[in-house]
C-alpha cells in the first residue's frame, strides 16, 4: 500500500531519487517505507517543477466510499496525509498562479481531493460508531438535542463538554428555551412575522408553479399529463388547462 501512496506523494520520492539518493537509507528502501521528512523544505508545498508549465494535468477521480471501506485503518491514515499534502500543494499552486496571473491547470483536482478526504472521514466515523455501539450501546458521537432556541425556532443543539456538572456551573446560561415556550412579546411577534414570510414564500412558489404549468400547456399541448402531474403535484392541471394563459393565440417561439 505504501508504494502506491508514495506514487501520489510524488514530490518527495521522485525528486529525492534524482537529487540525493543516499538520504533515503537502505532500510527505508527495503521496507519501502516513506517518510515525508526526507525533504523538509518549503518546496514540498509546490508541485514538481515539471508540472509548472503544464496547462493540463489530468488525474483520475476521487476515492469512493466503497473503495475506502476495504482499506485498513493505517492505510486510511496514510492516505489522509497524502491527500492533505496534495491539497496543500494545490492550494499553494492556485494561490501562486493567481499571484503570477497564470491559469491554474485543472482546478477540479481540489474538489477531487476534498471529496476523498470527506469520504475518509465518513468511513472512519462509521468504524468508530460501530465500535462504540457494540461496546457501549451509544454512538460515541457528540450528543445533539432537538431544542427550541432563544428566538423560538427549532434547532439542533450540539452539547458541549464541561468539567463540572450543570447544577454547579453557575456561569452557564441555557442557550435555548426551557420548555420550548416563552411568553415574550418580542419572540411572539417575531414568530408571527416569520410565519407570514414562510407562508408568502410558499404562496409565491405555488403561484409560480401554477403559471409555469399553464405556460407549459400552451407550448406543449400534447405533453404527457401524468408526468406533468408527477412533477407539479400541487397544481390543479384541469383548472390550469381551462385558463386563458394556457390557451394562447399563437405558437410561441420557445
Amino acid at each position, binding site marked *: 500500500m505504501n508504494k502506491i501512496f508514495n506514487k501520489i506523494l510524488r514530490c518527495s520520492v521522485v525528486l529525492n531519487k534524482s537529487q540525493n539518493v543516499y538520504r533515503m537509507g537502505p532500510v527505508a528502501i527495503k521496507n519501502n517505507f516513506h517518510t515525508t521528512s526526507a525533504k523538509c523544505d518549503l518546496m514540498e508545498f509546490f508541485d514538481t517543477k515539471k508540472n509548472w508549465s503544464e496547462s493540463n494535468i489530468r488525474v483520475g477521480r476521487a476515492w469512493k466510499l466503497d473503495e475506502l471501506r476495504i482499506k485498513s485503518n493505517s492505510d486510511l491514515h496514510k492516505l489522509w496525509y497524502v491527500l492533505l499534502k496534495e491539497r496543500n500543494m494545490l492550494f499553494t499552486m492556485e494561490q501562486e498562479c493567481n499571484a503570477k496571473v497564470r491559469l491554474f491547470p485543472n482546478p477540479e483536482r481540489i474538489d477531487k481531493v476534498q471529496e476523498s478526504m470527506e469520504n475518509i472521514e465518513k468511513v472512519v466515523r462509521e468504524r468508530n460508531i460501530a465500535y462504540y455501539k457494540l461496546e457501549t450501546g451509544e454512538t460515541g458521537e457528540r450528543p445533539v438535542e432537538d431544542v427550541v432556541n432563544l428566538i423560538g425556532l427549532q434547532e439542533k443543539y450540539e*452539547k458541549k463538554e464541561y*468539567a463540572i456538572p450543570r447544577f454547579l456551573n453557575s456561569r452557564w446560561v441555557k442557550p435555548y428555551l426551557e420548555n420550548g415556550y416563552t411568553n415574550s412579546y418580542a419572540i411572539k411577534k417575531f414568530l408571527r412575522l416569520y410565519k407570514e414570510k414562510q407562508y408568502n414564500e410558499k404562496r409565491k412558489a405555488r403561484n409560480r408553479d401554477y403559471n409555469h404549468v399553464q*405556460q407549459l400547456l400552451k407550448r406543449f399541448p400534447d405533453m404527457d399529463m401524468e408526468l406533468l402531474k408527477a412533477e407539479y403535484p400541487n397544481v390543479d392541471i384541469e383548472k390550469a388547462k381551462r385558463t386563458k394563459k394556457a390557451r394562447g393565440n399563437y405558437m410561441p417561439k*420557445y
Partner: protein
Amino acid sequence: MRIFGYLSKKVGDLTVKYSNLPESYIKRSYEQVYWKNPTGYPQYAKAQIARKRYRFTTNRPWTGQFQQQNERNTHRKKVFLEPIAEWSFFKGDRVEIMVGRDKGKQGIVSQVIQERNWVIVEGLNTHLRVMGKTKTFPGVTIQSEAPLLVTNQVKLVDPESLKPTEIEWRYTEEGQKVRVSKASSRIIPIPKSAEETMDFKSKALYIENTEKDTAADEVTKITFAPKLRTFEMDIMEEQGIKEDRVPAKSYWY
C-alpha cells in the same frame, strides 16, 4: 433570503458524466454567488445572493463561454422544458430528423444537452456561419449544427426496419435495463460512444497518471481486517503510542 432550490436548474446527469468532473466543481464553476453570509456564527442566517436563473445552451456549464453568456445583469427569457420521463438519447445513437430541411434524414447523435432536452446530430440540421469577418477579410463560412428537441424533432431508428420508432424501457431476463423499439420489439443497444467523456473515449482507455493516480489493482486490494478497536486505538497501537492516563469525568450539556 432563503436559498431557493427549485429556482436553480440542475445540470443534467449526462452532462456531469460527460464532463468527468466532480459535481461540486461544476457547481462552483458555473454558479454566480455575489454575497454569502459567513458560516459558523450564530448571528448570521444562512443566506446568499446569487444568480437564480441560468441560460443553458450548447456551451457547457464549466466553460468560459457559459460564463460569458450568463454575465451579471444579462437576463434572458425563461425557457420552458417539456418534462421527460426517462432520457433515452445517447451519444452515438442513430436518429431520424422529423422536422425542418433535413426531415427524413438519419444521422448520429454527436452531443447530448440534457438541460435543454437537446441533441445535436452530426452534419444535419445545419446553417452557415461566417467566422472572423473584417473589413478587409470576407471571413470563413462554416457549417454548424443546430440542436434538436428530443421530444418531437428527432426519433430513434428501429434497427430492423431502419424506420423511426417510439421506444420503451424494459428489463431483460438478466435484469438489465434496455431500450426496446415499439415497432419491431427489437432491443436498441446503447452505443459504446455513450460512455465517452471529455477525458477518454471509454473507461478502459483511460491512461493513468503514474505520478498522481493510485493503480487500479491497488485500489481493489482488501487490507481491512475487522478488529474491536476504534480508528484512534488502532493507529496508536501501530505507532507505539501508549496512553495510560484516565480522562477525568466530564459532563455534556
